[in-house]
C-alpha cells in the first residue's frame, strides 16, 4: 500500500502506541589527495575519466596498494567517535555487477572492520518531561562500526544526446576513500536521526577528514527503519531507505516511512523486509527490491591486501592530532564565557565560527556582547551575502575594535550598527570609520543640555501640550535632540536630561 500525503499525519494515539526504531549508515568521502588504492587525484568536478589509472579502472593485472593517509583519517574519525580501533582489521571483496564498479567487486571491510563500539551524544526529547522544560536531555547513540572502503564510479543516465538508449560511466570517483559509519538502531524519531546526522557531520568537519558535502556526494546516508508496538523488545521488520541526499529528505523520508509502517501494523498487515528508495517527485518511499532479490555479496577476504595493522603508537600519534570536539568546546565556552547553552551551541556549529568568536573575545570584547554580535549582526550579514565565516570582510580583531567603542560608550548600539555596515563594505577598522564620519557619541551633559534647551525653545507649542499632560511627547523631544546631534547624543543621557529640563521649564 502507498500513502497519500495526508496520511503522513499519524494520530497522537498511534504515536503513543508504536515506536519507530532507526539506524543510519553514513558514507563519507575522506578528503585525501589521492585515492585509497592508487595515486590518482580525488578532485571533484574534473573532466570525466581523467583521474584514472590501471588500478582504479580495474584493468587486468592491476593491484591495490592501501593509502596510509586514508587510514590515518579513518582512525582519526573512529577515535573522535569514541570507537575502539582494532589493531588488526581486514579488507574484503564485496561482489556485485554494476557498470560503474570496474572490478565487479568493491574492496570494503566486512567481518573485521577498522573500528567498533563507538557512540556520539545527541539531544533527545526522551529525557524531557511532559510540557517541555527549556533544557533538553541528551542521549548516547551507539556506533556499531566504522570501516573503510572504496567508492564506485558514477553512472550517468541523462544529459547526452543518446541518453535514451545509452548510459555513460565516469570513473573519476572510482577508488575515492570512504568511511562507512554504521549506527546502532538507537534512534527513535526522525528528529533524533536528523540531530545524529547533524552532530556526526559536525564532528567530521571539526576533524577535517571530509568535506561532508551532501550535494557533491561526499556525505551520503541510508536508513534502516522499523516500527514496533511500544514496550515490545524485539525489533520489527525493517526497510532500508536509500537515496537520502539531504537533511530535509532524511527527515521527510523517515516520517513517511514511519507513518507507512505504523499504518500497516495498525491494520494488522505485515511490513515486508525490503530496500526502498526516497522518491523526490512523489515525496514518498518506493519499493526497490524485496528480500528475495537482495544481493548475496559473497564477501571474502581480499587476497591482494595484507591485514591492516594499526599499532598503539600510531593510534596515539593520531589521537594527539584530535582537535577539541564540538561537545567539549561547547561545555568549555559555557563555563569560560558564561554563555547560554543555546548560544554556545550556535557558536560551536563550526570550528571556524567558534574560532572567530574566541578571537573576538580574546581581543578584549565582552564575551556576551561578542556572542550577540557574532550570532546576530555578523552571521546575518554573512548569510545575506552568501559568505562563509572564513570569508568575513570584518576580522575578529576589527569586530572587537567596534565592540570596544560600544563598551566605552563612544558609540551607541545603533551607531555601532551603521559603523558595522560600513565595515562590511570597506573592511576598514571601526575607529577609522568613526573618525572619517565624525561619528562619536556625545556624552557631555552640558553639550546635550544646551541642545535640549534650544529644542525646547524652538517648540513652544509642544512644550505647552506636554505641560498640560501629554507626556508622550517626550518621544518627540528625544527625536528632535537626536536629529540636532545627528544621532550622536547618548540616548540614555538625552532621556535623563530631557526629563530634568522639561520638568523644570
Amino acid at each position, binding site marked *: 500500500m502507498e500513502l497519500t500525503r495526508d496520511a503522513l499525519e499519524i494520530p497522537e494515539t498511534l504515536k503513543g502506541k508504536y515506536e519507530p526504531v532507526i539506524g543510519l549508515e553514513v558514507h563519507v568521502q575522506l578528503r585525501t589527495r589521492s585515492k585509497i588504492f592508487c595515486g590518482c587525484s580525488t578532485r571533484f568536478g574534473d573532466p570525466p575519466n581523467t583521474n584514472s589509472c590501471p588500478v582504479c579502472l580495474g584493468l587486468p593485472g592491476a593491484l591495490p596498494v592501501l593509502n596510509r593517509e586514508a587510514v590515518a583519517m579513518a582512525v582519526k574519525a573512529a577515535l573522535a567517535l569514541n570507537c575502539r580501533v582494532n589493531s588488526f582489521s581486514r579488507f574484503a571483496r564485496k561482489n556485485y555487477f554494476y557498470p560503474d564498479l570496474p572490478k565487479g567487486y568493491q574492496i570494503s571491510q566486512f567481518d573485521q572492520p577498522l573500528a567498533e563500539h563507538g557512540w556520539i551524544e545527541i539531544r533527545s526529547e526522551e529525557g524531557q518531561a511532559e510540557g517541555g522544560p527549556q533544557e533538553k536531555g541528551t542521549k548516547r547513540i551507539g556506533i556499531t562500526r566504522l570501516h573503510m572502503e572504496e567508492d564506485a564510479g558514477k553512472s550517468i543516465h541523462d544529459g547526452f544526446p543518446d541518453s535514451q538508449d545509452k548510459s555513460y560511466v565516469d570513473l573519476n570517483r572510482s577508488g575515492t576513500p570512504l568511511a562507512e559509519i554504521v549506527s546502532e538502531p538507537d534512534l527513535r524519531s526522525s528528529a533524533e536521526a536528523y540531530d545524529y546526522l547533524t552532530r556526526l557531520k559536525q564532528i567530521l568537519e571539526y576533524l577535517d577528514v571530509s568535506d561532508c558535502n551532501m550535494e557533491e556526494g561526499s556525505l551520503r546516508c541510508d536508513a534502516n527503519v522499523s516500527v514496533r508496538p511500544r514496550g515490545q523488545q524485539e525489533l520489527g521488520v525493517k526497510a532500508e531507505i536509500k537515496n537520502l541526499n539531504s537533511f530535509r529528505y532524511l527527515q521527510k523520508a523517515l516520517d513517511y516511512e514511519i507513518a507507512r509502517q505504523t499504518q500497516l501494523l495498525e491494520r494488522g498487515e505485515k511490513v515486508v523486509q525490503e530496500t526502498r528508495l526516497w522518491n523526490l517527485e512523489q515525496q514518498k518511499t518506493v519499493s526497490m527490491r524485496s528480500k528475495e532479490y537482495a544481493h548475496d555479496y559473497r564477501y571474502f577476504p581480499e587476497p591482494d*591486501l595484507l591485514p591492516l595493522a594499526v599499532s598503539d603508537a600510531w593510534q596515539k600519534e593520531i589521537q594527539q592530532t584530535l582537535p577539541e570536539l564540538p561537545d567539549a568546546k561547547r561545555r568549555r565556552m559555557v563555563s569560560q564565557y558564561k554563555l547560554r547553552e543555546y548560544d554556545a551551541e550556535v557558536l560551536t556549529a563550526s570550528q571556524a565560527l567558534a574560532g572567530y568568536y574566541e578571537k573576538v573575545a580574546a581581543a578584549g570584547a565582552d564575551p556576551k556582547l561578542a556572542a550577540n554580535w557574532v550570532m546576530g549582526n555578523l552571521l546575518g550579514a554573512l548569510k545575506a551575502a552568501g559568505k562563509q565565516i572564513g570569508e568575513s570582510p570584518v576580522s575578529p580583531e576589527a569586530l572587537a575594535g567596534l565592540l570596544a567603542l560600544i563598551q566605552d560608550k563612544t558609540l551607541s548600539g545603533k551607531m555601532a550598527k551603521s559603523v558595522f555596515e560600513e565595515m562590511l563594505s570597506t573592511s576598514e577598522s571601526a575607529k577609522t570609520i568613526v573618525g572619517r564620519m565624525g561619528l562619536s557619541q556625545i556624552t557631555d551633559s552640558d553639550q546635550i543640555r544646551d541642545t535640549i534647551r534650544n529644542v525646547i525653545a524652538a517648540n513652544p507649542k509642544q512644550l505647552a501640550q506636554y505641560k498640560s499632560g501629554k507626556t508622550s511627547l517626550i518621544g518627540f523631544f528625544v527625536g528632535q535632540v537626536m536629529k540636532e546631534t545627528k544621532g550622536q547624543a547618548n540616548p540614555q543621557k538625552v532621556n535623563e536630561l530631557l526629563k530634568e529640563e522639561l520638568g523644570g521649564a
Partner: protein
Amino acid sequence: MSLDISNWKIEDVLRSLRSRETTATEICQASLARIAAENPKNNSLITVTQERALARAAAIDRMAASGERLPPLAGVPVAVKDVIVTEGTRTTCGSRILENYVPPYTATAVERMEAAGAIVVGKANCDEFAMGSSNENSAFGPVRNPYDLERVSGGSSGGSAAAVASGMAVAALGSDTGGSVRQPASFCGVVGLMPTYGRVSRYGLVAYASSLDHIGPVGRSVKDVAVLLSAIAGHDPLDSTSAAVPVPNYVSELDGNLKGFKIGVPREYFAEGLSSGVRTQVEAGLQALGKLGCEMVEITLPHTEYATACYYIIATAEASANLARYDGVRYGYRAPGAASLSEMYQKTRGQGFGAEVKRRIILGTYVLSAGYYDAYYLKAQKVRHLIAADFSNAFEKVDAIAAPTAPTPAFRIGEKTANPLEMYLSDVYTLPGSLAGIPGISVPCGWSSAEGDGGSSSEIKKLPVGIQLLGKHFDEARLLRLAHQFEMAGGVA
C-alpha cells in the same frame, strides 16, 4: 648461413655478444626464424612481437657498440606467458574475451626483465586465464608437445615451456597457481620454477587466484632460471603482497657442495596414481641426489590428499571475483544485440569465456554463497593451514623435499578433456606446494616411454619426466643449488 640458437643458454648469448661474434639483432632474427618454423607446429605463441623485439635488439647492439657493460639478460630472446601484461602488445589470457585487448602498462616482472636486457619475442599460449593442466583450454588452440605433437605441452604455461623446449626463445616467464610452471616444464623437458609467494611481484599478472598466483621463470638450465629470477625478484611497491626480503645473487649461490643436505621423500607422493615410468625415473633421481652427498629421509605430509579439493575451492572462489571485471563494459569483448544490461553481461560472458573458465567461476561463486561459505571456503582455508603446517613440520627435519612433478608424462591431446576431475589430478603433486606458498622447481629427470603405448606398432616415443624439488619459504638459493648440482651431475639419463 643462418645462426641457430635453438640450444643456446643465456650464457651463450652473453658470450657471443661480448666477444662480438654476433649481434643481438642476429640472435633476435634467429629466434624469429625459429618461431616461424616451429610455431605453426606446436602453437606456443599467440602473438609474435617481431617489430618491438628487433627495435630492442638494435638498442642492445648500440649499447654493445658504445662499449657499455651489458646487463645480465642482454639480447636474450624470451617468451612471456599471455597472462602477463605488456604495454602496447595485446594480452589475451588465452581467452576470446580479451582477444583484442591491448594493455596500457607493463607488468613489473617484464619491466625488470627488459631492464636487464631481455628481448620479448612473443606472448606465449596458455590455458584460458591460466586455468588448466594441458593447454587445451586456450581459445587459440592447444600447445603441442615439441617431443610428440600429438601430446599436450602441459599447462597452463604450456606455451612458455614449449617455446623454450623447441628453441624459439632461450627462456620464458610463466605463471604457476597450482603447478602451471612446474608441470609443463616437466612435460616439455625444461626447468621451471615457482618462487615463494611474494618473491616476484604480481603487478601486471592477470589474476586467476590471487593468493596462489606466482610468476615463475622457465629455462633450459637451472642456471638460466637463476639468472632470470635474480632479475625479476624483489619487493614492488605496486604489489602489497610482494615481500621486502633481500634478493641474493642466485647465480653465485649455485656452486657449493651438498654434504649433509637432508632431502625429505614424502611417502604420499609415491602412492597410488603415480605411473610406473615416472616412478622409475624419480627414484633414479633420488639415487643421483644421494650420490651428491644428500641424505634421504622418508617424511610424511599427512594432509596431501585434501590438497586438490582445498585448491579447487580457494582458487575458484578467488577466480569468481577476479574474473568479474570481464563484463563487456570497459574493454574486451562485448556481445552484440543485447536488449538490457543483464542480457549484455550474460551474452558477453557466455560467449567470451570457455567451458573450463565458466566451470570454475560457477564453482567459486557457489562456495562463497550465503549458507555455503563456512562449509566450503572457510573449511578450505583451515585445510590450507594444515597443509602449510605439514611442510613447516617437515622442514624442521629436512632441507628440501623431492617428489615427482606430475604423475605421468605428457598425455595425449583430448585424452582427459572429457573428465575434468581426472585432469585436475595431473596437478596432484604440485598443488600442496602452491597452497603452502613455498618455492618449487621442476628439473628434467630423464625419459620415460609413453604410458600405454607399449603395444603400439609404431616406434615407442620417449617423453621427458621431471623431478620436483620443494624448499622453505624464500630459500630459493639453496633450492636452486640443489637443482643445479643435480643437473650438473648429469641428472638421470
